[in-house]
């Protein structure tokens, strides 16, 4: 059964191919269903593969490389297109396909009525296919192809509504930040090939002795640069917040299942190399902890519901890198799984809210939504408690696992992690309070949307939020039979039943509800994957062949574990207990939202100052000096040279046979002269 692995990336990729060609003909719901079906098919294959892998018991037999074809056979440089099926990649594949399938399903409802409905699914399928290629690649180059594919798709998807300037520039920003990381990946690849002469994971990890400590540290740090770009770690995280410009399912896909987990996967894949490089490990752990704290502090002040979640993702990823840095790869994967469940849920829930609020994303204009959106409120609430770390939900176990390992390894980093845990509980409770509890602050949205929507858009803009639907969907509206003199632009996600114009938020269609329920279930019980109590209950232990033995089992007594668990819970309760009273009744508290945090520690501005201004200065210098003198000189020189050459040579072509014959004769004479000169010498 293992040999079916090639189907995993192939299904979504072929889905993208078919949709790319026939998508327009398939039309609206059908294209979405096809896209969903291919990813679901991948998920089924993943389950089969998983079962097949589980059925193997012999040690070492759970790592299978499937070589599909020889790709680049150039002398000593042999690269195969191969898939590596082992516990790590299968874990990734299972949750990537599973979550992606749910998000595809959800998108059918969310993107309903969008002008580029089919194109959206083309990108979405391509995204998932690339991610699977990344995860399954048996060598660095195949992984890199997936890596780049994911980067390109994220660019297309984030700037999906590219008519909007902010979306277009957010896409560019994501792409450029990722490129910075890609440089790290490329350099790491060159270095590895230089030392080992192969890019195959098996070969590289079998020849770790070929690396001296310095080059090993260099490889790990370069890979970490790549991972930091893709997984939004300090200082490369600003793109992830801007990436919220994409449609909400894209945010969910990027944050929960694909893209950002790629960096975590990469570091986990390189765990044999990482484990010996202590300096690099410390760097990874410190950056992870710092990112977790910084991002959580920013998330505590944002007004845009998706921005809060974005920084929350960055913060959680920081936890994962903290775990990787202290050598607890299993804990990182566990947190990644749990995070995929509840963050996917949070984003889809946020999508439901935004959908219901006519594309309003500002928390200050929401409130008391639990009365109108029961399903969303309940599922969202589950995710809230899960990520806050309330036992027995998944987040408690996953985050606890990370913190326990950090405690065993580095107390300072653990302390940062613990404080961040309280912050995490705080910012999500704040979000919860502002969106689902408190006063209903959204009535003017609905009051105006029934009439002329112009003031609504203006009012909304005044709050500082974007209206995704308002401009994009206008062409689609004019294309469809007009239902009245004026089609209210914010209503363009037209699945809404007519009564909602009467001024109430409402739930989305069932395709949007099902993923919520499934994910809520997973977010609740996902912790069962790795309960610390009993050694015989150890589902995640199957990752052991990839990661080696576990760290904290050996060091921690049961009493310490209990104590740490209680500390986590207390922190979570402190966070929740602070936030709920503060933010339920009053949403305008500038003192709690210092500009420093609102502006994300001025990181964006700093990068802008250094990179962008510096780049501009450099550009001005090159524009004034280098370009006209050096480059232009060379280019125009080449142009003139080839031009003169071509113009001269062209004259040879006179059209007269006698002159052509003369050319042949001249060539012949030259050849003869040369040959005869050889005999004389």
């Amino acid at each position: 059964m293992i040999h079916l692995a090639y189907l995993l990336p192939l299904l979504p990729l072929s889905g993208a191919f078919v949709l790319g060609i026939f998508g327009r003909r398939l039309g609206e719901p059908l294209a979405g269903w096809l896209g969903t079906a291919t990813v679901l098919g991948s998920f089924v294959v993943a389950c089969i593969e998983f079962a097949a892998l589980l059925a193997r018991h012999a040690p070492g037999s759970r790592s299978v490389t499937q070589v599909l074809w020889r790709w680049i056979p150039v002398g000593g440089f042999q690269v195969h297109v191969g898939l590596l099926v082992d516990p790590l990649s299968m874990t990734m594949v299972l949750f990537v396909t599973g979550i992606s399938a749910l998000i595809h399903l959800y998108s059918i409802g969310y993107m309903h009525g969008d002008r580029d409905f089919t194109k959206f699914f083309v990108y979405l399928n391509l995204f998932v296919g690339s991610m699977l290629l990344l995860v399954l690649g048996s060598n660095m180059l195949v992984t890199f192809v997936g890596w780049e594919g994911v980067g390109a798709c994220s660019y297309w998807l984030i700037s999906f509504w590219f008519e909007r300037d902010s979306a277009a520039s957010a896409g560019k920003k994501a792409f450029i930040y990722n490129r910075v990381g890609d440089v790290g990946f490329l350099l790491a690849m060159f270095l590895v090939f230089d030392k080992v002469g192969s890019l195959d994971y098996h070969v590289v990890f079998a020849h770790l002795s070929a690396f001296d400590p310095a080059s090993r540290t260099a490889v790990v740090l370069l890979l970490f640069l790549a991972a930091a770009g893709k997984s939004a770690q300090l200082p490369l995280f600003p793109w992830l917040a801007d990436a919220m410009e994409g449609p909400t399912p894209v945010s969910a896909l990027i944050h929960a299942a694909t893209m950002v987990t790629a960096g975590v996967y990469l570091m986990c894949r390189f765990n044999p190399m990482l484990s010996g490089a202590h300096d690099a490990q410390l760097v990874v752990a410190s950056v992870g902890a710092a990112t977790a704290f910084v991002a959580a502090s920013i998330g505590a002040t944002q007004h845009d519901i998706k921005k809060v979640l974005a920084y929350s993702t960055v913060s959680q990823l920081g936890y994962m890198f903290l775990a990787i840095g202290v050598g607890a790869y299993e804990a990182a994967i566990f947190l990644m799984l749990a995070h995929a469940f509840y963050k996917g849920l949070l984003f889809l829930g946020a999508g439901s809210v935004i959908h219901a609020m006519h594309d309003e994303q500002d928390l200050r204009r929401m409130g008391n939504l639990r009365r109108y959106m029961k399903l969303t409120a309940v599922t969202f609430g589950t995710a809230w408690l899960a990520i806050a770390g309330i036992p027995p939900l998944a987040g408690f176990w996953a985050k606890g696992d990370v913190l326990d390992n950090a405690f065993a390894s580095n107390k300072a980093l653990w302390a940062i992690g613990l404080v961040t845990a309280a912050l995490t509980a705080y910012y999500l409770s704040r979000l919860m309070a502002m969106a689902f509890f408190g006063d209903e602050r959204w009535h003017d949205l609905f009051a105006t949307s029934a009439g002329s929507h112009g003031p609504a858009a203006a009012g909304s803009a005044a709050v500082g939020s974007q209206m995704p639907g308002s401009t994009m969907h206008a062409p689609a509206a004019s294309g469809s039979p007009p239902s009245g003199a004026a089609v209210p632009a914010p209503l363009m996600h037209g699945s809404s039943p007519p009564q909602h114009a009467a001024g109430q938020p409402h739930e989305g269609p069932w395709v949007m509800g099902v993923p919520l329920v499934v994910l809520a279930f997973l977010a609740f019980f996902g912790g069962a994957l790795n309960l610390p109590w009993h050694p015989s209950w150890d589902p995640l232990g199957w990752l052991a062949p990839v990661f080696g033995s576990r760290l904290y089992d050996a060091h921690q007594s049961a009493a310490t574990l209990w104590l740490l668990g209680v500390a986590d819970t207390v922190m979570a309760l402190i966070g929740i207990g602070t936030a709920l009273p503060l933010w339920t009744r009053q949403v305008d508290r500038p003192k709690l939202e210092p500009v420093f945090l609102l502006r994300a520690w001025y990181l964006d501005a700093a990068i802008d100052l250094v990179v962008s201004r510096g780049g501009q200065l450099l550009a001005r210098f090159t524009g004034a000096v280098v370009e006209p003198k050096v480059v232009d000189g060379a280019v125009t020189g080449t142009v003139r040279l080839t031009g003169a050459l071509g113009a001269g040579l062209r004259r040879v072509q006179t059209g007269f046979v006698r002159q052509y014959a003369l050319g042949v004769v001249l060539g012949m004479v030259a050849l003869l002269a040369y040959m005869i000169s050889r005999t004389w010498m």
Partner: protein
Amino acid sequence: MSAPPGITELAAAAAKLAIPHIDYLSVLPIMVMLGGAVVILGWSSLLRRPMDSGWVTSLTVLTASATLILSLFQWGAVLAHGAHTHIDGAIVQDGFSAFVSVLVSCIVLVSAVIADSWLRREGVDGPEFQVLLLLSAAGAMTMGVANDLIVVFLGLELLSIPLYVLAALNARRAESGEAALKYFVLGGFSSAIFVYGIALVYGATGTTDLPQIADYLARNVLLHDGLLLAGLALLLVGFGFKVAAVPFHLWAPDVYQGSPTPATGFMAAVAKVGGFAALLRVFVSSFHLLQNDWRPPVWVLACITLVFGAVVALWQRDVKRMLAYSSINHAGFVLLGLQAASNRGVAASLYYLFVYSFMVIGTFGVVSVVGGRGDRRHSLEAYRGLGARQPWLAGALTILLLAQAGVPFTTGFVAKLEVISAAVHAGSTDLAVVAMVSAAVAAFFYLRVAVLMYAPSGAGSEHALDGLGIDPAGATGSSGPSMPAEAPVLVARGEAGSVGVPATVVSPAPGAVDETIPAGVAFGVGLCVAVTVVFGIWPETLTSFAQHATLLLRP
């Protein structure tokens, strides 16, 4: 009246003439090719009216398919039993020859399918085109199996003479006749040089048999090898002419431009395959010991061919002419493999020829559609906005052009990589650098067409091109005033011939451009694109095919 005295002696002498045993199985693919031509010609001569072109094409495709299958059988036989010589050493059956036979069969197959609709459109239906296609292909296959310089020459002529006629086939266009005449005169000229080269080699070694030449060179040290080297030089001239290497290329731009477009594609592919097959075999396996003498001049030839082809192509406004220079550039790349004078170089050259053939036939297939009725819309301007008018056609052409430029994930990239790495392996790094620079220059004119196709065409409507007053014939170089549209009689004839192939001859309005894609072209070009992309992503099958296509005498 007494019988002439010598006749009995003559008869006795004739009986003593050693007629070699002919193993017909070994030449069966060539015989089928020729037989197909004879059958089509004979059958059509028995008919009262011109033979339906659908039938002719079907028969041609059938013949080519049969040849393809036979060639594959020969390939299997070579793999199973090793290489052999037949007919008293005149021809050889080895991996190399089987590869060439397979390739030539494919060329005929694709060319015949693509040419079909062109023949109807231009009203030159009748069996001649396809018959000449088969005859010429038989010549190319003969060059592939030739194990004797005389047989090489036989193949060369069998390859060339039908090509001269193919060039002239569109009798309504003055350029067509002009192209044929130039090709014929220069071809005859170079053939004479080639034969003289054979004579000199025979004079120096006492044999024309290729293995015996190698044997002779291995056994003897020539103190005065001027004769042999001069012969070698003349052979190189003859081959260089056939494959259009600079400075023997001068015929190519005029002939490519003047010939009927599908014939150009076929000519560009088959002449290079045949010419290079024999060139590689003769130089790499027979004159291997003289490689210190012939590698430097081939180095120079390759170098100027690469540079000249790329640089002059930049200046062409006529697409067919541009493609002619582009194919000169390609010839330079194949010469890289020859210059390496190694098994690896031979394999790389074969691979290059294989993928080049599909790319060039597909490209000319698209050009033949864009050319429109009268086959004269070949200026670059005709391609402006093609992406909007005919997205499939433009997409196919884009892929084929990118492949010719050597973009990764196409066969063109792998092919260039292989020849360049063969050259580097053989120590000709300088030549490899020249090749890469020329590829970079060449990328410009390929991409220019690609960009032009997706550039907005003026007002953006389908008829904008005509509205802009672009004279389709304006840039076709030496042509006179554009000719009037075809006579209605021909239109009717074209329609009558269609079996399952849409008749595209009926143009909707005077002056409007008919760029609809006939089924045959769609199939043929689609096949070329598929080969280009599929073997670009999975190069292994084809590269190992080429690597196993070894010569009987390996260096």
